[in-house]
């Protein structure tokens, strides 16, 4: 089957507009996900640390964590939508 995929890849040949478009779709989402990926990691890391240090305020920390998470993930989701409408 890998053989068939290779054949398919070779059969196309050359750089086409469609090919570039597909590449752009992939790149748009991929690059839009870099920043939010780092950001979400930081949010959850800090929230876990805060919950471990002060378990009695875990409820509030969790709420605030999800607000931050939602704001950051908005960027990744805008990238996702952009990849579709491009």
């Amino acid at each position, binding site marked *: *089957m890998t053989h068939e995929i290779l054949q*398919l890849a070779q059969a196309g040949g050359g750089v086409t507009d469609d090919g570039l478009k597909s590449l752009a779709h992939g790149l748009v989402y991929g690059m839009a996900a870099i920043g939010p990926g780092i950001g979400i990691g930081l949010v959850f890391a800090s929230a876990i640390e805060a919950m471990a240090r002060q378990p*009695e305020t875990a409820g509030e920390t969790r*709420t605030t964590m999800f607000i931050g998470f939602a704001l950051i*993930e908005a960027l990744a*989701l*805008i990238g*996702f939508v952009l990849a579709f409408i491009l």
Partner: protein
Amino acid sequence: MVLAIELDPIHLFNWDPLLFEGTPFELNRVSILTLLGAALCIGFFLYGAAKKSLVPKGAGNIAETMYMFVREKIAIDVIGPKDGPKFAGYLASVFFFILFMNILAIVPGINFAPTSRMAIPFMMAILTYLIFNIVGIVKQGPLGYLKGTLFPPGAPKWVYILLTPIEFFSVFIVRPLTLMVRLLANMMAGHVLLTIFFLFTHDFLVTNLGPAAPLGLVTIVVAAALMMLELLVIGMQAYIFTMLTAFYIAESVHGHGAEDHIDADHEHAGEHKETPHVTEGIAA
């Protein structure tokens, strides 16, 4: 078989009408599954609530625990002990509707979540959008709500030139958009991922059975592991959607900067024990 041709993404999410073709009540696989999910959800809770007892057993126990989770950990924790229970019904409906829709994604033989089509996340996001705006207008008055949302107190005057457009964009446009796209994107990605691995398995083990067969065993194990991951995503997405809905409602109920009010509510509930803990921590 060439995989690239077999996997036309449209056919993963689009079905031809099955029943009542040509009428406004046209049903295809997605709408039938939506009805099935809703029926399962309603049926489960009716069955759970049928036998009322002080110490519930079986389905009743599960239903009660799940409902109390939404009520205590989401509604009351986020919105506060006074207003939380009023919204617990809506939040629980949202949570369980999404949960039951999503779970269809990993039920063998169905393997499709209606939430991976835009219609359902869209309607739920619109409903949440209407509710948090209407609650804000009712609780704070139309002008007070707009003022509290667009001009959050506590910033220097010149900052509002920048802050107000950002707040407007983020509250009235980005919030409903991200609510629906988050759910849609997660369920869609999960569906495509599972389909790809099952197609690979089918290709290696059935269609092109040959020297590559051991690879098929690898892909089927990965597919099983991905179904476990999907289970996690299913629960997470239902929780996040409900949590954010609760937070948006809380912000409308208490005005901007809901955390201060949550603090106040907690203090009224008599949680003064934080202070000694903090001093102990510093002393240690």
